[in-house]
């Protein structure tokens, strides 16, 4: 199994606060990797290191190394634009722009200079099809995206990322504002998407990690406690702290 992302001795500080402590992790290619752990353990922070979204926070300092396809992410010379085109991100709340459905999907393309109508239409259709929205929405692509249901909005946000042809998709608690049925549909979608993309999902929901991911990583207080095949983590965790968490003794 080849590793898409290799994280070594990653440390992150918010001012004086040591948020990630010596994190080592390999993320496999074209699989779903979930990161679980109690609130404030650094899951989202770790995820946001992978596309350097932490740069937006003032006073953040990162040491260590993250390599995606052997290219260093943490270097000051990293081209953030191509990094973020390669590593897309889906956020906690569905957050389409207040634009039409079509314009949402092709936003990234337009930004990167593609304005040819036929190309945009083709990509929009392909991306929406991949997230199973195209058949429902093909006649209302010019409708406002904010009129969609939350589930559709979140799928649209995934389509917006897919339109950029990324290699990695980061999902930051993508189902936390969705109902259980919509949650399952997003999880099903992840199973389809992992054929083409490497997915990393941060989730509060242990069942979600158990259902939807191939690899599970457990974090606590900024440290990576354990990482392994999902079925192993949930049936035979090696670390006592992992066992406490997944058996519901805390968290």
């Amino acid at each position, binding site marked *: 199994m080849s590793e898409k992302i290799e994280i070594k001795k990653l440390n992150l500080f918010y001012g004086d606060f040591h948020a990630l402590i010596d994190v080592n992790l390999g993320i496999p290619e074209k699989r779903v990797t979930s990161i679980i752990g109690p609130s404030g353990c650094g899951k989202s922070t770790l995820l946001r290191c992978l*596309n350097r*979204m932490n740069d*937006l926070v*003032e006073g953040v300092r990162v040491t260590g190394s993250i390599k995606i396809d052997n290219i260093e992410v943490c270097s000051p010379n990293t081209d*953030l*634009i*191509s990094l*973020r*085109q390669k590593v*897309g*991100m889906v*956020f906690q*709340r569905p*957050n389409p*722009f*207040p634009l039409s459905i079509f314009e949402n999907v092709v*936003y*990234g393309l*337009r*930004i*990167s200079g593609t304005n040819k109508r036929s190309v945009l239409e083709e990509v929009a259709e392909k991306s929406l099809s991949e997230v199973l929205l195209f058949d429902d929405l093909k006649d209302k692509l010019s409708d*406002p995206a*904010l009129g969609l249901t939350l589930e559709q909005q979140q799928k649209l*946000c995934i389509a*917006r*990322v897919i339109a*950029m042809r990324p290699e990695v998709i980061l999902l930051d608690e993508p189902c936390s504002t969705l109902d259980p049925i919509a949650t399952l549909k997003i999880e099903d979608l992840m199973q389809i998407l992992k054929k083409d993309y490497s997915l990393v999902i941060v989730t509060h929901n242990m069942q979600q990690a158990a259902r939807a991911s191939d690899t599970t990583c457990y974090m606590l207080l900024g440290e990576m406690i354990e990482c392994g095949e999902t079925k192993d983590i949930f049936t035979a965790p090696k670390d006592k702290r992992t066992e406490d968490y997944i058996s519901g003794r805390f968290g």
Partner: protein
Amino acid sequence: MLDPRKTEKIMFTLFGLATAIVILPVIIICAFIFIQGLPGISLQFLLDIPRHGMKGGGIAPAIVGTIYLTLATAVFSIPLGVFAAVYLTEYAGEHFLKRLIEISIVNLAGVPSIVFGLFGLGLFVIFLGFGPSILAGALTLAVMTIPVIITASREALTSVPKTYREVSLSLGATKWQTIRHIVLPNAAPGIITGAILGLSRAAGETAPILFTVAAFYLPYFPNSVFDQAMVLPYHIYVLATQVPGVSPKIQYGTVLVLVGLILIMNFSAAYLRAKFRKRKTW
């Protein structure tokens, strides 16, 4: 102890009264000007030049002058104000310089308008040699309007949800692309209404234009930005104090035209705001 239900009633009555006291003078002034001024309004009054030592004819040059001056002020103040607001909201970090700029803006907004007038006289009219002209007047009014536009624009910019910026950046957009494609379009309604309100205040000012552009009497329309112009606020002052024997009809008519222009600007700002608020969905 007083019955809370009664206290509630008393407090609401007090708040209502306070509101009425605030609104009443506005209504009375507007109604008074309207009643007194309306008989003076006619097509000739709006389209003709002042005649018979300003005791007859119309006020067309002053109307046109005011419109020119306001438009020129907009040309200078809106881009500068919006750019400065974008810089302060989106680019400037939390450092000493930013705080200094913020304090300056607050203080600039509090400078008495006559001081702006003298500043404009010194800088634009004399030092830069523009002479009394629409250019000098508009620049002076722009300096006065910019703090208003910056403040309104910053409010509009910060009201655009942070997540839009994050999403845009996460899709590989640069900061400027994010501002250009996401932040500014969503902030535009607030910026536009703020700008109109700032300009409508500038349109009614007398002190800043006194030495920089206002002409006592010019029976023609300005040809270029280097011309002096008649402007309504100053014309009202002239009619009231400098020319004896002008009929109240003409005086109130002129006031009504100025108030009308400003009200049109304010109402269009309110209309735009309401229209965009309805469309806003976050």
